[in-house]
């Protein structure tokens, strides 16, 4: 058996094959067979990844990262792009997350989508997404990464617009596509600039060259900073940060598994991954770092506030996703790359779980998404309840749950990391409080209190096995996913960060952060434990929980009063700060006007059409004159032939004669 490391391409290609098969033949197939192909391919991928991990751990550190080029792709002068893959610890983490969570969600979908039309289409898209995501993660150069980048964008567009009969769905799809595209423009330019600067798009070369170039301090905008910021633009678009976050909430139009896989667990974290992958660059462009951190923190807080008042269960989760992504950016921005990735992983677990659980709830409620029409579901759907509860604890950052470790790591780095920045830290803390508040609000509204739905209309029922199993597995992960860092509670090492160190130690900031993480001043483990239990994050989480409990269990009438008392603020939040309206007025409308009145009516109709028609017209005129030659009389043609013959003979023989 060949080593997976030698045939890395098999990993992304398996899902692609699945997609192709389902896409071409799935239409007439029964669901079971579609499942076999779809899930089969993904699970094979997962196994391949596991095998790869095994081999990877066997490798001596010297031989990592694995860099393999399989074929030249684009070769033009000095510009050369290969199909080359790059596998290091970071990639390993991403691979595990993507393929693992992906597999679980595929399984979940078999239950959730069972009665939907276009079943094969769904799985075809999902597999395609897996393909692109894996390409993105494993890519060894910027261009190949960009392929995956755009590919996942495409798949997300297709899947958001999965119910293409619903206009809202289609619009949401378009919105997602276009919004992210705005960021991608920056990304593309960034790539070109990178090539122009480093005369290569391969990570290896780029990193090497970056290492040898001086660090650009804050406020100093050099080429590295420019590249970093441009790439960041793409990341912001993809990972739904301010100001391009608007597409993500609408993306909830898609089926819930899609929201879970693409818009919570994997795709939206592509930006984070990209920044982490290019950490060398960012560590040398401190301005960019600052921007990253700021964007992250602000987004974290901002979208959390919106999350407070949303009533649609999936919308709440969407905004919480945005804010969690903000946390990741914050982590990256303050140089705690490992922490950021750590949060990425845990978030993949608990947010995926939350979405799936929400999906299960919606499934139970027969498609109802408004939390005000739920309540008291605790007894009806216990499994969903418990899993969701676990996820909520995790995201709220309750100690011993995965979210706690990652979030704490980020906040610590923000408080007293090398790039520490107190304002950002404060924003983070507040965000954390809001997070725990709205999450518990969601939990209480959904599962506690009295039923606010009509018993006879809605027949609440627990979801089938193939939906619950992934829930449970994810719940376990959501709880235990963070225990790599368990020792830190008593001042021990953080295994996750140690594992990632080879990747990030290149970055001075990263190492510093990690080092700082590793040896907080050596006091007794008990003290450390106490401190970590009394960390601000935990406290605010507690506050959030209590407020939520007070509002929605103890005194359910308070929220309304509050809403009336601070009515303006409430509506503002409810309407998401009127950002969409703002964009519509400021950007979309003018753009539309210009493209209609200028580009269309002036440029297209007069200039372009004019040119084209003109060309055609002239050609026709010439033809009109020339066709007179073609009299249709064979003898004339014969005569013409002779003319030609004479010309040739005179020419050839004449010239030949001259030569002789």
């Amino acid at each position, binding site marked *: 058996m060949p080593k997976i490391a030698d045939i890395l391409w098999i990993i992304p290609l398996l899902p692609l094959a699945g997609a192709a098969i389902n896409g071409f033949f799935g239409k007439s197939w029964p669901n079971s067979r579609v499942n076999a192909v779809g899930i089969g391919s993904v699970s094979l991928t997962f196994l391949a990844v596991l095998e790869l991990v095994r081999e990877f751990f066997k490798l001596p550190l010297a031989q990592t990262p694995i860099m393999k080029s399989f074929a030249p792709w684009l070769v033009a002068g000095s510009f050369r792009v290969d199909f080359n893959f790059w596998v290091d610890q970071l990639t390993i983490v991403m691979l595990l997350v993507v393929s693992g969570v992906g597999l679980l969600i595929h399984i979940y979908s078999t239950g959730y989508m069972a009665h939907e039309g276009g079943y094969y289409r769904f799985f075809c898209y999902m597999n395609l997404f897996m393909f692109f995501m894996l390409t993105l993660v494993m890519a060894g150069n910027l261009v190949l990464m960009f392929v995956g980048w755009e590919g996942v964008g495409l798949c997300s567009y297709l899947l958001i617009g999965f119910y293409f009969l619903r206009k809202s769905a289609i619009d949401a799809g378009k919105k997602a596509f276009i919004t992210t595209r705005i960021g991608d423009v920056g990304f593309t330019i960034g790539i070109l600039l990178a090539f122009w600067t480093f005369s290569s798009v391969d990570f290896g070369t780029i990193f090497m060259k970056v290492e040898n170039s001086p660090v650009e301090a804050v406020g100093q905008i050099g080429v590295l900073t420019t590249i970093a910021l441009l790439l960041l633009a793409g990341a912001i678009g993809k990972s739904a940060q301010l100001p391009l976050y608007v597409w993500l909430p609408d993306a909830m139009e898609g089926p819930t598994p899609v929201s879970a896989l693409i818009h919570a667990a994997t795709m939206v974290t592509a930006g984070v991954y990209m920044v982490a992958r290019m950490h060398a660059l960012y560590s040398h462009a401190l301005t960019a770092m600052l921007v990253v951190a700021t964007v992250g923190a602000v987004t974290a807080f901002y979208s959390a506030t919106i999350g407070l008042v949303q009533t649609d269960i999936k919308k709440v989760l969407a905004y919480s996703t945005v804010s969690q992504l903000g946390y990741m950016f914050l982590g990256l921005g303050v140089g705690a790359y490992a922490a950021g990735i750590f949060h990425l992983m845990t978030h993949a677990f608990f947010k995926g779980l939350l979405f799936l659980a929400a999906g299960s709830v919606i499934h139970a409620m027969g498609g109802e998404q408004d939390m005000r029409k739920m309540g008291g579901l605790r007894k009806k759907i216990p499994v969903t309840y418990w899993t969701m509860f676990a996820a909520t604890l995790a995201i709220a950052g309750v100690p011993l749950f995965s979210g706690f470790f990652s979030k704490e790591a980020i906040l610590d780095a923000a408080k007293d990391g090398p790039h520490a920045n107190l304002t950002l830290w404060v924003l983070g803390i507040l965000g954390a409080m809001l997070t725990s508040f709205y999450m518990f609000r969601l939990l209480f509204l959904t599962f506690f209190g009295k039923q606010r739905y009509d018993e006879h209309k809605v027949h609440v029922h627990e979801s089938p096995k193939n939906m619950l199993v992934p829930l449970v597995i994810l719940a376990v992960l959501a709880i235990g996913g963070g225990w790599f860092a368990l020792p830190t509670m008593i001042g021990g090492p953080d295994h996750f960060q140690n594992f990632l160190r080879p990747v990030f130690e290149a970055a001075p900031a990263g190492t510093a952060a990690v080092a700082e993480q590793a040896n907080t001043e050596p006091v007794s483990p008990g003290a450390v434990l106490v401190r970590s239990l009394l960390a601000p994050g935990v406290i605010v989480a507690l506050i959030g929980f209590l407020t939520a409990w007070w509002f929605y269990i103890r005194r359910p009438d308070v929220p309304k009063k509050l809403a009336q008392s601070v009515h303006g603020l409430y509506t503002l939040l409810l309407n998401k700060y009127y950002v969409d309206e703002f964009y519509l007025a400021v950007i979309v409308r003018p753009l539309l006007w210009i493209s209609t009145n200028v580009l269309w009516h002036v440029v297209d109709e007069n200039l372009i059409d004019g040119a084209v028609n003109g060309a055609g017209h002239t050609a026709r005129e010439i033809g009109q004159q020339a066709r007179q030659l*073609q009299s249709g009389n*064979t003898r004339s043609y*014969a005569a013409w032939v*002779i003319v030609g013959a004479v010309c040739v003979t005179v020419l050839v023989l004449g010239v030949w004669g001259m030569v002789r």
Partner: protein
Amino acid sequence: MNAVPTSYFLILSAILFGLGVIAFVFKRNIITILMAIELMLNAVNLAFVAFDRANGGVHNGWVFVFFVIVVAAAEAAVGLAVAITVIRNRQSLNVEDMNLLKF
């Protein structure tokens, strides 16, 4: 006995070819025009054989004559078939009546 100089043959072939060309332009009858083509081919063959003798040695020239003859046969077969069909449709042998293929 001494041979005929090669140039004589070549000149003859040139003349025949020219006559073929003229016939090709001046005849109105499809079939005759096809004949004119045959005439030209023959002229060429003569040139081939003459040159072959002039060069002596291996008879590559003959081989080409051979191929020319084959092609001529094929050409005659197809050409006449075409002529027959055309004549059937146009009820005329005069090429000047077959002037639909224009403008």
